[in-house]
C-alpha cells in the first residue's frame, strides 16, 4: 500500500506539470491582448510599458517557469507565513502572483471567495449524499416498487434537466410566486442571532437544493445499481441461509460491499461539483470561486484564470488519488504492488 501510494503520487506530478503547461500555453498563446481593453488614447509606447510591467516582455518558457515558481514556491510560502507568523527569507521583495484587475495577490482573492463556494457546494454535496444513498439502497431492495419507480423518474429528471434551468424555475416558483426564499444569495449577511440565522437558512436552501438535485440523481442511480449487483451474490444467500433477518443482511453485509464503488464516486465527484457551482453561483449571484472565474475571464485577468483553472485541476488529480486509495483500503480483494 505504501509503495503504491508513493508510485501514484509520483505519477501525479508529471500529470500536474503537463496540465499546468496546457493551461499556461492556452492562455498565453491565445491571440488576446490584456491591454486590448485599455482606452485607445494611450500611446503605443505606454501600452508596451504596461505589457512589460505585467511581465509579458519575456520569452514564453521564462514566463512559464516564473509562473510555476510563483504558484508552487512563493505563494505557499506566503500562506505559511501568514498562518504561522514566522518570516521565511526575504518575504517583502518576493514577486507575488498578482491579479491584473485588482492588483492584489491572487491567493488573497481566492481565500476571500472560498468560504462561500465551500458552504454552498459542500452543503449541497452533503445533502445529496444523505438523500441519494439511502434512497438508492431502498430502490434496489424494493426493485420496481413505487418508491423505486418514483426515484427513477426523479433521477432521470435531475440528471437531464440542467442546473441553469432548475435554478431559474426554482426562483420563478419559490421566490417570485410563493415568496418563500430570496432569489439571490447575500454573501455579506452575518449570522448574529436567531432571525439572521433563519435568513441564512432561507437563502441557502434554493442554491443547495438545485445543486443537490443533480448530484443526487447520479449518486442514487449508482448506489441502486451497485446494490443490485451485490444482491444476487452467493455471500448474500449464505447470510440469508444462516437465518439472519433481511434488515441485517442488507444493512451489514450488502451495504458494506455495495458502498465501496459509491464512496469512490463520491470522492471523484467533489472536484466536478466545483464546475457545476460556476453555473449555480451565476444564477443565485453568489460571489464564490465560480463567479471570480467568470469575472476574471471576462476581464482577461490571466493570472487569476490560470491559477483558478490550475487549482481545479489539482483538485481533480488529488481526488482521483484519494478515490484510488480509498478503494484499495475498503476493498480487500484489491492488492496494490
Amino acid at each position, binding site marked *: 500500500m505504501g509503495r503504491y501510494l508513493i508510485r501514484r503520487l509520483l505519477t501525479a506530478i508529471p*500529470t500536474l506539470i*503537463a*496540465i499546468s503547461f*496546457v*493551461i499556461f500555453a*492556452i*492562455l498565453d498563446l*491565445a*491571440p*488576446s491582448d490584456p491591454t486590448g481593453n485599455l482606452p485607445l488614447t494611450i500611446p503605443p509606447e505606454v501600452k508596451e510599458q504596461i505589457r512589460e510591467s505585467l511581465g509579458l516582455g519575456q520569452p514564453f518558457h521564462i514566463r512559464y517557469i516564473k509562473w510555476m515558481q510563483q504558484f508552487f514556491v512563493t505563494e505557499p510560502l506566503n500562506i505559511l507565513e501568514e498562518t504561522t507568523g514566522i518570516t521565511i527569507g526575504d518575504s517583502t521583495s518576493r514577486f507575488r502572483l498578482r491579479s491584473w484587475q485588482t492588483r492584489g495577490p491572487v491567493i488573497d482573492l481566492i481565500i476571500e471567495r472560498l468560504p462561500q463556494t465551500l458552504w454552498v457546494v459542500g452543503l449541497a454535496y452533503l445533502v445529496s449524499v444523505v438523500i441519494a444513498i439511502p434512497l438508492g439502497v431502498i430502490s434496489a431492495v424494493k426493485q420496481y416498487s413505487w418508491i423505486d419507480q418514483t426515484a427513477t423518474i426523479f433521477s*432521470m*429528471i435531475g*440528471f*437531464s*434537466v*440542467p442546473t*441553469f*434551468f432548475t435554478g*431559474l*424555475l426554482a*426562483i*420563478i416558483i419559490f421566490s*417570485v410566486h410563493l415568496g418563500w426564499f430570496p*432569489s439571490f444569495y447575500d454573501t455579506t449577511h452575518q449570522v448574529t442571532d436567531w432571525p439572521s440565522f433563519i435568513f441564512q437558512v432561507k437563502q441557502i436552501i434554493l442554491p443547495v437544493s438545485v445543486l443537490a438535485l443533480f448530484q443526487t440523481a447520479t449518486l442514487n442511480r449508482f448506489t441502486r445499481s451497485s446494490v443490485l449487483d451485490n444482491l444476487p451474490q452467493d455471500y448474500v444467500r449464505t447470510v440469508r441461509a444462516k437465518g439472519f433477518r433481511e434488515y441485517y443482511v442488507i444493512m451489514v453485509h450488502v451495504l458494506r460491499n455495495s458502498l465501496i464503488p459509491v464512496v469512490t464516486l463520491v470522492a471523484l465527484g467533489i*472536484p466536478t461539483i*466545483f*464546475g*457545476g457551482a*460556476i*453555473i449555480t453561483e*451565476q*444564477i443565485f449571484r453568489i460571489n464564490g470561486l465560480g463567479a471570480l*472565474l*467568470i469575472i476574471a*475571464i*471576462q476581464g*482577461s485577468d490571466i493570472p487569476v*484564470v490560470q491559477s*483558478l*483553472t490550475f487549482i*481545479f*485541476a489539482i483538485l*481533480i*488529480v488529488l481526488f*482521483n488519488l484519494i478515490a484510488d486509495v480509498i478503494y484499495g483500503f475498503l476493498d480487500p480483494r484489491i492488492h496494490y504492488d
Partner: protein
Amino acid sequence: MTAQSEAIALPVATRKQRTLWGDVWIQFRKHKLAMFGLAVITLIVVGVLAGPLIYTKDPEYIDFTVANQPPSLQHPFGTDNLGRDGLARNLFGGRISIAVGIVAMLISMFVGSLIGAVSGYYSKLDGPLMRFTDMMLALPLLPLLLVIILLFRDTLRAMFGPETGIFLLIVFVIGILNWMPTARVVRGSVLSIKEKEFVEAAISIGTNENTVLLKHVFPNVLSPIIVAATLSIANAIITESALSFLGLGFPSDVPTWGRLLYDGKDFMTFTPWVVIFPGLFISFTVLGINFMGDGLRDALDPKLRE
C-alpha cells in the same frame, strides 16, 4: 464440429431472416422509456426542421407593440421584451442547438474511437495514449471551455464570420474536450475483442494489422460507441447551453436554447415564458436522448436479450 452442426441446422431454421439491426429494434421496442424518448426526440427534431417552414414568423422580427405578451393563439409561446415571437425563436434555436450536439458528437466520437482503438490494439502506443487520456480527464472542463472560447472567439469570428466562426469554435472545443470517456470504453472493448479466436484466425491467414483492426475488431466495438454517441449529443447540448447561459456562447442574434435562457433570465420575474419554453426544450431533448441511450445500451447488449 460446431461449424458442421450449424451447417446441418441451417436449412431446418426456415424462420424469417433476422438482421443484427432488426434484433436491436425488436429489443429496443420492448423498452418503454426508450420508445418514449425516441418519440420525444423525433417530435422535437421534426418540429425544429419542418416547423419554421410551416410556422413562418421571422424569429428576428422586432415589434414593440406586442412585447412581453403571454402565450396566446397569435404567439403560442408568447413574446419577449422586444416583441419577438417565442415559438419561432425556439424552433430556430433548436436547429442550432441540435446541430451543435450532433457535430460535437461526431468530433468526439471520431477522436475517441480513433485513440481508443489504436491504444487498445497497438500495445506499444497504449501507455502513452492512456496517460494522455488521463491527463485530459484531469483538465477542468467547464473553466477551460470558457477560457478557450473567450480567447479565440474574436479571431474565429474575423476568419469565418460571426455565426459560422462561433459555431465552429464551440463545436470543436466541446468535441475535443469530451472524447476521453469514449476512448476508454473503446479501448476496453478492443482489448477484450482482440484476444478472441476470430481475430486470431484473421491474423493467422496473414491479414494485415490495420485491416484486422478496421474490418474485424472495429465493427464489434460499434455498440459501445453508439451508446456513447447518443449520450454525448445530450452532453454537448447541455454544454452549449451552459456556455450560452454564461454569456460566452452564441451571440444574441443566434437564438440557441441556452442563449434564449440567458437573454430571458433578466425578465423571468414578469415574463416567465421566455425562460420556461427553451428550458423545457433542452430538458426534453436531453431526457429523450438519455432514455434512448438507456434503451440502446440494453438493446445492443446480446447478453441481455431473451
